[in-house]
């Protein structure tokens, strides 16, 4: 990994930024689903940042792939950006990157065409995010030694912890989610229970009977 051309540095740098952006996209995606807020920001900021960061991440990945291809020290075909096992160099790790990018492209394209797609199909593809991020993470760790030492190691652990925390948060809510057939009974129960301190119910019921 010596032979430090500008391209090689650019590829590594854009890769790191892409990982950070993808971590943010993932966490923001969970926030959107849970109707969570970012302190001090309006609700549309959460949805807007989620969408915009995902596009930005893909832009950084495009540069990340291009600069790796253009760097003459190792020979990586352009196709290796999206086709697994197309590269001789670091075949496994680059394949993971390609797979992850393929999943991202599927998620973004279906989201852009969402109003023309079946809802169940859109959701099924969007759930691939739970696969795409770990695969991208594995690529990040394995494709170069950058993230395996020093402050970049701490950074990558931090990203993994954030994502893991978001997943746990999401699963915990899925476990508590009230199924449709029981929602009305839940509203009855909550409303009757809260009658002692009967004020205009703000939004606690909406949270509980989330979909």
């Amino acid at each position, binding site marked *: 990994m010596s032979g430090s051309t500008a391209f090689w540095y650019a590829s590594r740098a854009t890769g790191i930024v892409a990982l950070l952006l993808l971590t943010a996209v993932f966490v923001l995606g969970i926030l959107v689903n849970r109707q969570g807020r970012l302190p001090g920001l309006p609700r549309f900021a959460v949805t807007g940042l989620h969408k915009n960061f995902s596009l930005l991440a893909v832009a950084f990945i495009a540069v990340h792939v291009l600069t790796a291809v253009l760097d003459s020290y190792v020979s990586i075909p352009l196709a290796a950006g999206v086709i697994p096992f197309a590269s001789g160099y670091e075949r496994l790790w680059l394949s993971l990157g390609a797979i992850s990018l393929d999943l991202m492209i599927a998620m973004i394209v279906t989201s852009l065409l969402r109003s023309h797609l079946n809802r169940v199909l859109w959701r099924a593809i969007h759930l691939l995010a739970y696969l795409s991020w770990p695969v991208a993470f594995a690529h990040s760790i394995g494709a170069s030694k950058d993230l395996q030492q020093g402050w970049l190691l701490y950074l990558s652990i931090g990203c993994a912890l954030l994502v893991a925390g978001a997943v746990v948060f999401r699963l915990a809510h899925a476990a508590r989610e009230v*199924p*449709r*057939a*029981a*929602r*009305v*009974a839940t*509203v*009855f129960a909550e*409303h*009757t229970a809260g*009658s002692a301190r*009967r004020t205009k119910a703000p939004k606690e*019921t*909406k949270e509980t*009977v989330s979909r």
Partner: protein
Amino acid sequence: MTATMNESVPGAATRQAAGLPRLLPPVPEDLRGHVARYGQTPYRGQAGLLISDIEASGLTGRGGAAFPVYRKLAIVDRARGRKVIVANGAESEPASRKDELLLRVAPHLVLDGLQLTAEAVGATEAHLYLHTAGSAELLRALAERSARSVDMLPVTVTQAPPRFLAGQESALVNRLNGGPALPTFTPPRVTERGLGGAPTLVQNVETLAHIALIARYGPRWFRAAGTSAEPGSMLTTVYQPAGHCQVIETEIGAPLRTLLTSGAETQAWLVGGYHGNWLPLPQATALTLDNATMKKYGAAVGAGVLVALPSDRCGLTEVARVTGYLAAESAGQCGPCLNGLPRIAAGLAELAGPGHRRQTRADVERWAGLVTGRGACNHPDGTVRFVRSALTVFAPEINLHARGQCSATNRRPFLPLPDGIPTSEDDWT
């Protein structure tokens, strides 16, 4: 369930003079009796021909919405490709018994109407959807017709789950498509895209029975009864204060007082079932059973459920019970309905109890305004209409309860409700 004996109920003479009954035979009829009385099924041999007769007859839907039937037929007739017709016998209103009775005593009128309408709109597929799919009479009727090759289209029978919304048009199509009997968002209407994506015509079984008669006797005969805006006869399910329930066929436009008692034994009338309106006595005795009159009082005929509430019951308790049922039967898909109906029901339960907080009436009114028009179907709207009319008619009772008193001497429930509330997803399939 009492089959009608038109001779023994109030207003019987008037009904006979008007040429009734038309739909209900004196005894349940098998195919032979049906053909002996009405003749063979009068197929026209071509799509579209029957529709102008239906238009001339002025027939309106008997499932509750009273929409002009010919318009729906024309929409589906104009469509191309595969088309589906469904006979809707799932009268999910607990107090209504007319469709069940009709299917038991005159199934061949309904099934004739189904085939004739299928021919008229060019349907390629016919279904029957009802709560009693396994009933012996129905299976026998279908077998008889099949044996004699009476039907042009084979009829697929599907069981409707015992839910209040199961007979709602989009819920019905959802169920027939293999999903749960839950309403879906419209547009597109089922007449544009319904069962399997094909234009689907859904008609109440009573409407189909009328079509079967119009096809034989013509629009002028049909108009001999009823009003000019709403011609013909209709089936009503009538509850008198003594507690018995009867299905009575009556002219549209008949005075309500020929169907319901108005003496001291009753305190208020309910017209249109659990999505209908409470009417005060004695003012309601001036009303006639037709939508033109009813609309002036903010009411509607609906599917013809008429109740004279006994004077010895507590109207508030009855309304609270029924509203609790209606709230539990919400599909739970739309935020306003899901949040609003249980709260309204709880508020009514409080009003029906001894003493209530002053805020409760205002809360119930606010929630009623919040749910109206904000669901995918009109379940919240119908429920609010039932509740609002009750709050008006039983206002004196509310004041009594506020002081810890109640005028009722009989605590036995009067308005019928089914046992069991939906608790799991399976309840809807």
